């Protein structure tokens, strides 16, 4: 709840806004997936900081599940772009 976590949340939310603007500007599927990969890493870091703010250890479990699901999504889209289903 101190100033450091709020500075960190400020950097991360500014990054999420820039990432969403970049996601709207991209044309190719692979470029969009690159930007989405960066945005999921940003949200994973932001969830760790949120678990520090609320002092709750359960948010870290949600963070691990979120990281696993985003990793699967990136692999599935890359494989589908390369050779189809």
């Amino acid at each position: 709840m101190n100033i450091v976590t709020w500075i960190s949340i400020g950097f991360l939310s500014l990054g999420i806004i820039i990432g969403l603007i970049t996601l709207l500007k991209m044309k190719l599927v692979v470029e969009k997936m690159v930007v989405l990969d960066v945005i999921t890493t940003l949200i994973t870091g932001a969830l760790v900081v949120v678990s520090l703010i609320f002092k709750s250890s359960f948010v870290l479990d949600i963070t691990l599940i979120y990281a696993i699901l985003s990793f699967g999504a990136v692999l599935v889209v890359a494989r589908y772009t390369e050779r189809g289903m």
Partner: protein
Amino acid sequence: MSALQIIGSFFLIVGSYFIFVGTLGVYRMPDVYNKLQAGTKATTLGFVSIALGAIFLEPAWAWKLIVLAFFVLASNPIGSHALARASKNTGIPAVEKKKEDGEK
């Protein structure tokens, strides 16, 4: 503030700054491959630094954060490698290198 809190705050701010710089690099780079380069290295370093700072701030959660950091450290290069191979095999061209002013 104790010494652990100061070290943890330093790592937290450094990590979030590196993730922000990585996102800015994805916004600025001209090509898919340059975007992958900027977006994967800087965000992996930033996330590991954020997890290290959280370990210093809350030492009781160390094992969950270590598992999370190792998972991101293993899964982020695999995903970027798959994306780079897909974009190379579908024939997306790389950008040509431009000559700087004064270079022959």
